């Protein structure tokens, strides 16, 4: 912090806010752009269908520093009770 800032106070500059917001936003968005995500989704559905009825499948991807996450949530049809 410069002397000027010490004397006159300092609030978070908007450029810094822009940077932070973009980093968070893009961490979520980047992975949506994975070219194979739709095909992957189709294939997973095919595999799961062999064993169970699928209601819905949610694929979430996230990039955090150097780690890429792939989160797959499969909602199964609950088996009938008769």
């Amino acid at each position, binding site marked *: 912090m410069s002397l000027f800032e010490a004397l006159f106070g300092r609030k978070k*500059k908007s*450029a810094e806010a822009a940077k932070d*917001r973009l980093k968070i936003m893009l961490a979520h968005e980047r992975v949506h*752009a994975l070219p194979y995500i739709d095909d992957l989704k189709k294939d997973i559905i095919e595999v799961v269908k062999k064993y169970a009825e699928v209601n819905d499948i949610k694929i979430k991807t996230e990039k955090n520093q150097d780690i890429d996450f792939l989160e797959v949530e499969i909602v199964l049809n609950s088996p009938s009770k008769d």
Partner: protein
Amino acid sequence: MGTIITVTSGKGGVGKSTTTANVAVGLAQAGKRVVAVDFDIGLRNLDMILGLENRIVYDSIDVMEGRCKLSQALISDKRSKNLFFLPASQTKDKSALKKEKVRELLEVLKKDFDYIVIDSPAGIESGFENSIFLADEALIIATPDVSSVRDADRVIGIIDAKSEKAKEGKEVKKHVVINRIKPEMVESGEMMSVDDVLNILAIPLIGVIPEDKKIISATNVGEPIVYDKNSLAGEAFRRLSRRILGEDLEFLELKSKRGLLGIIKGLFS
């Protein structure tokens, strides 16, 4: 064989056509045989920025649909003798551009020119795909604001998915051009700096263009700023063009013209 450079951005209004015009002129002034191609079908602008709007008779759709010869549609620029311009169609709808026709056209142009500079439409629809699928290099234009950087990131992410070169395992060279930097705002922390943007986008930098009022006057008269030897933005575009040709040039040092308060602030920091 010529090199296809596609100028693209994601967000509209960040300076794609201006950059296309100035890079095309810059390359031509460096002695290369260049054609600037407007692919923004229905919303052409490159013609006015280049100052060639009154000389259009045929457009690229006419060529692709066989209504005229390529040589009839190509407009030669009087100021730069190596520079030619192929206008976009203004009346027909965007779907008029067919991928295979585009391929034929670009392959002919590649034989005749050193550089084919394509002004791509904003967005990531079919028009974008037609502009990028045969590109050897891409210039991604971003201004230092959140929407532009976010959209630039999206575009960077899908270039390889649309590119034939990438499908063959080759690399599409991708570079970012940061446009409309306002040094005084960067210095006061109210605008992201070049480094901030590069840090986020993580592709190499090839140009930094300062905000310059002279660009507006240049566009008004249809004379790209790169011709103006006294303009900072013009110099920035000249350097950008020479970097495309492989020269390793320093980036312009952009500093604000400080007022009294700025000078006092500078003494303390």
